[in-house]
């Protein structure tokens, strides 16, 4: 009994100490931020550059003296896209590493499983990579999103394309998951506004490599414009299949297919493909001076060329740094949230959109731009479409 009493006493003391401490993860000279990435699972190709982008922004901030004298430290956990591992990672980051906030967690199952734990522990849940609406709506004081939702930007992009190019038969090829469903909603909303039906839609299962039957079906329907809710490999497969059977229909892919890998893998076959960009790919060739410097520094630091995911990671960390600076030297969750809710950032050298948050608006951007693959690289054609 004595032992049990002592044990309970120690536990109670530990709990009360934790409860008494202000702003977890914030000490006199450090701010600890957590992130759950996929570094070994099916979307590790995205997770690694996102992590590196965030690391680089924090290292830049630290080199410039930190945020109000505090250095930033990023603790990254690998979920391998497994929600069970993610739940444990979230608890570890909260309990052991005492992170101040969670930044850019990656993958819908991961985000959906961990978000209640994160906000339940009173930590800000910032800019996750998930199309799920619940990452920003209904408004929750601790949830913020910066990545434009598929529904919104695909609505604007489809309207723009149909209005300017007068397509009559709009069709869709979509991945059979939450990503595909979100895109369908956006495209259908755009067509409803234009009084046009969606002529045909057909799906594929994630990881499919043969899209011949889907493309044949869309061609049979007489589509003159195909919206692709695909990721890189399927984008290339869809366009290649269409061209193989001699079908030169216009195609528009979401930001998930807007990647340098699309033209690296697809080569000449993907020439002319349209895409939506929510952040531009950092091409070294023709880059402005600050962008060229950034690319060079990234290459030296991580031994690889940056891509659009690196820019997203850098951008997410950049918003964190700006909000933390704005929150002042007495950093607390309340002050940070208040700073986030008044944050308005201008465009930067990457060509990113303006991010504008408010007390009633925790989604920083809703817009994307139309781009096209010309001579083996994405060329931005429009400004951000409202």
């Amino acid at each position: 009994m004595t032992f049990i009493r002592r044990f309970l006493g120690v536990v109670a003391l530990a709990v009360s100490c934790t409860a008494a401490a202000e702003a977890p993860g914030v000490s006199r000279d450090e701010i600890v931020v957590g992130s759950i990435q996929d570094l070994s699972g099916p979307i590790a190709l995205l997770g690694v550059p996102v992590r590196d982008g965030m690391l680089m922004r924090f290292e830049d901030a630290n080199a410039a003296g930190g945020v109000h004298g505090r250095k930033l430290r990023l603790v990254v956990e690998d979920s391998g896209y497994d929600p069970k591992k993610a739940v444990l990672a979230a608890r570890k980051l909260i309990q052991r590493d005492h992170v101040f906030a969670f930044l850019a967690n990656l993958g819908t199952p991961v985000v959906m499983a961990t978000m209640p734990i994160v906000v339940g522990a009173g930590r800000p849940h910032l800019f996750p990579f998930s199309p799920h609406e619940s990452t920003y709506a209904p408004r929750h004081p601790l949830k913020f999103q910066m990545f434009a939702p598929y529904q919104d930007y695909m609505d604007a992009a489809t309207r723009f394309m149909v209005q300017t190019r007068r397509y009559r038969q709009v069709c869709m090829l979509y991945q059979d998951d939450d990503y595909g469903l979100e895109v369908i909603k956006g495209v259908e909303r755009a067509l409803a506004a234009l009084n046009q039906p969606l002529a045909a839609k057909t799906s594929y299962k994630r990881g499919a490599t043969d899209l011949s039957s889907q493309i044949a079906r869309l061609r049979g329907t007489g589509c003159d414009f195909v919206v692709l809710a695909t990721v890189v490999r399927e984008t290339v497969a869809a366009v290649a299949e269409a061209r193989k059977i001699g079908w030169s229909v216009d195609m528009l892919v979401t930001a998930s297919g807007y990647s340098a890998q699309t033209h690296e893998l697809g080569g000449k076959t993907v020439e002319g493909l349209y895409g939506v960009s929510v952040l531009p790919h950092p091409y070294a060739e023709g880059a402005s001076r600050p962008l060229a410097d950034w690319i060079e520094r990234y290459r030296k630091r991580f031994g690889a060329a940056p891509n659009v995911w690196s820019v997203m990671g850098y951008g997410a960390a950049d918003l964190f740094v700006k909000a933390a600076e704005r929150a002042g030297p007495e950093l607390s969750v309340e002050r940070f949230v208040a700073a986030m809710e008044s944050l308005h950032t201008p465009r930067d050298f990457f060509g990113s959109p303006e991010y504008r948050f408010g007390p009633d608006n925790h989604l920083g951007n809703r817009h994307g731009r139309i781009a096209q693959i010309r001579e083996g690289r994405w060329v931005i054609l429009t400004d951000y479409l409202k």
Partner: protein
Amino acid sequence: MKGAVMPASGVVRWTAGVIGLVVLGALALRSLGLEYMLAQAAFVFTYAIAGLGVVLVVGQCGQIPLGQGALLGLGAYAETLLALRGVPAPVSLPLAIALGATGGWLASLPARRLGGLYFAMSTLAFALIVEEALVRWESLTGGAAGLAVPALALGSWSADTAAAQAALSLVALALAGFACRRWVASRLGRAWRAVREDEDAAAASGIDIGRAKMLAFVLGGGLAGLGGALYAHWIGFVSPEQFGLTLSFELLMLVFIGGARRLAGALWGALVVIAIPQAISLASEVLPPDLAAAVGLETLLFGAVVVAVVVLRPQGLAGRGSRSSG
């Protein structure tokens, strides 16, 4: 290796195991915090429940189920849909178990005509059908977008802390383990082992092979259903992709690491599958930052641990040399 030697070595082994676990637990508790440890324990116990089902099918009955993840999915979805409609846990959990068991029965039907690898392939096909159905039946399952799961509630009390989740999982595991012990020691258990060793000989001894296999799948499915139902609450979000082939293979790996022929193997296997990746993640913190950041390092180390276990203990962690029994 028979007779009087076993009990003595067994006691030593058990004592060493328990002491080892306590020391590991104390160290982990000290460095990790209570909540994190309990959350981990909840997953270990939950996976062990599903693992017990696989032990019955693989270790006792000698069949290879490649679709056990889908049965977990059936339990998870049944529990989620019922909980969302306000059905209390004492009612919804048995229904989730029943759906898992029904799934197990369906998956076992081809066993009357197929054997060995062909039957294994049919369970794989069953898993694919279930996953596809979960995606397509959008009006019920929410399709690929998934469903949020409320906390497990018993009356006005809800299991929303890691401690409550771990405690409930432990109780469920204890009950499941107790039931499994009885089945394994019964006439049915002997029939399973006879089928496992030699189907023709078992048939010649008057054992209904089809029935024995069917019951292994039904009971294994029920355990998977229970594991799935708890898993859904602990994760708080279900989507079809979580219950795909990866989970089925993870469960198979779990029992082979733990020891497919012994019930304790399910717990040992779950401990390795859940805790080792966490331990590796913690250990990698002491490595130089550049090495620790190397992509795939944790997967590589986990693979090495699994290979080491399989090579050093081919009968699994709970296995006893080459001898096998219930």
